[in-house]
């Protein structure tokens, strides 16, 4: 029997009542996230990412379709889902400012039923892990934005959730704080095999760094789904390498272009010129697959040129998004 999906959605839609006309936030999403997977939802504001998370965390009912989390239905088995999930949102201001960091976490631990002593022990562990030791007795209202988000992250870990929802978790954080949070997330996942993470973000780097698979969503629809590598291949089937040589091969580029597996070999820009610099040249070589690279390098050497630099040129996820949607991330309305 195949393992049950951590998250399963079929034909999931959500329509909000609005004037002058209803707004379709989700338009029939199909999704399967496997246990232990770090899954990303990548899309601009208004794509429907938050709506999907609200449905999966039992905060919203779908208008149509079905969804299950850990095998439990989001409409009829909410109590069981709530025992195994947690959620951390970007810019979250939850809790009470007059409590200390330690007290706030303990309070939330009680909502998940941790026995008092175990609750305090867990709180202290998470404070240490998230680097809040110096702020442990500081009132929550005095924490910086980054510290506050670390606190939220620790809150999300309190019940050691089987499915963790991260909704734009690094929103508004500086580079260092965002990196810390990403590292904590990866460390938690490494320490807790079988745990599933659903991350929504519109930061490409974040999705690329953290996620095993990514769904690109826009206007309530999943436009593409796959590993970051698979998604990139959607917009670029061939492998493109940028090769820098100390000089052109003796017989120019024709021989390279004729090699098996080589689709094209053309001069590339080098320091603003058109491929020819004072002491080196740059080539852009398109290959049917990476295995043809060896014959290219060998052919270059046989023709008296020396390899100075080699880099694989790959499209970014943003390229993938633009290719799929026909526009960039920045020109959307607010998320529903």
């Amino acid at each position: 029997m195949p393992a049950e999906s951590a998250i399963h959605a079929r034909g999931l839609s959500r329509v909000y009542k609005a004037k002058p006309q209803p707004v379709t936030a989700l338009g029939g999403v199909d999704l399967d996230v496997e246990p232990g997977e770090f899954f990303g939802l990548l899309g601009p504001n208004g794509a429907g990412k938050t709506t999907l998370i609200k449905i999966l965390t039992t905060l919203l009912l779908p208008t149509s379709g079905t969804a299950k989390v850990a095998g439990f239905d989001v409409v009829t088995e909410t109590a069981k889902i709530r025992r195994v999930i947690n959620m951390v949102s970007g810019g979250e201001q939850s809790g009470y400012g007059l409590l200390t960091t330690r007290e706030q976490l303990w309070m939330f631990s009680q909502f998940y039923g941790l026995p008092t002593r175990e609750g305090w022990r867990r709180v202290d562990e998470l404070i240490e892990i998230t680097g809040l030791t110096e702020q442990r007795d500081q009132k929550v209202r005095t924490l910086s934005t980054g510290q506050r988000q670390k606190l939220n992250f620790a809150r999300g870990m309190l019940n050691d959730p089987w499915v963790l929802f991260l909704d734009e978790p690094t929103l508004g954080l500086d580079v260092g704080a965002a990196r810390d949070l990403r590292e904590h997330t990866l460390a938690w996942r490494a320490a807790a095999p079988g745990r599933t993470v659903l991350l929504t973000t519109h930061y490409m780097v974040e999705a690329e760094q953290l996620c095993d698979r990514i769904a690109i969503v826009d206007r309530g629809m999943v436009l593409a789904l796959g590993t970051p590598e698979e998604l990139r291949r959607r917009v670029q089937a061939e492998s493109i390498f940028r090769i820098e040589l100390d000089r052109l091969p003796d017989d120019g580029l024709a021989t390279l272009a004729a090699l098996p597996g080589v689709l094209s070999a053309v001069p590339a820009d080098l320091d603003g010129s058109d491929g020819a610099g004072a002491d080196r040249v740059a080539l852009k070589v398109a290959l049917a697959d990476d295995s043809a690279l060896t014959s290219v390098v060998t052919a270059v050497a046989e023709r008296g040129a020396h390899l100075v630099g080699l880099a694989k040129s790959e499209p970014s996820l943003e390229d993938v998004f633009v290719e799929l949607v026909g526009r960039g991330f920045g020109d959307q309305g607010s998320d529903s």
Partner: protein
Amino acid sequence: MSGYRATPATNAREAAEWSTRRVFANNLRAIVGRAYPRIIGLTREPSWIFFEILLPFLAVSAFVFVYRALEAPEEYIGFVVLGGAVTAFWLNVVWMMAAQFYWEKDQGNLELYFTAPMHLMSILAGMAIGGLVMTSSRALAVIGIGSLLFGVTYDVREPFLLAAVFLLTMIPLYGLGMLFASLFLLWGREAFHLAQLLQEPIYFLGGVNFPLRALGAVSGFVAAVLPLAVGLDAMRQLAFSGAETNGLLPVGTEMLILGAMAVVFLVGARYALAYLEHLARREGRLTLRWQ
């Protein structure tokens, strides 16, 4: 990094299966957890001494001087002081129970409460117990200061019965607050106005500063719907000599009314909460702070 791990379950399905005992314990802990910030707040915000004891005490003092000027019976001074103490509970119910879910929504707490495994009634119960403990200290301060300053004499012949009436008053009073918590959230931005609406008129109808009986025909209606009024009337009868004659109904009858109110308000709160949650999930608002 092993500290990230906490649960011994081997898969999510297993982790989601909770025994009845565990569900019960979870809800008890949630009550304690939610009561905690209110109780600890006593030591964190000393400004309450000025705003919630000294300022309200000025209103109590004004009535005391009026009664003294009119040469009213001496127990009326005690009535006002006791009324001033009970007022603290009503303020707590209106501002920190009824309007609380509305504030919690703005802070983003409400959606975390919804996604946590405890029942929302436990959150309300925690708010109520925390508020009761917090306000009791304020009420005791009002009674202590008022009694000392104005020389109030008490004649408590049945202290346990008085304590029972006090507790029996608090259950429907906070039950009403729990019921209002859901209703206020449904009414959204009107919550602030509703809270204000429930303040001054209730001071009047609750007989906070005079015997409830003085309201005449209206007092019967008030006794049927306002736990503050009935409870205060019963407590006055048990705390002051000669107050029985000013009482609206016998203490036993008032206790029965309070008991009935407790059932009605708590059951009402339970249903209002279920309706609220259903509406929140269906309409996609109420829990989402930006909507």
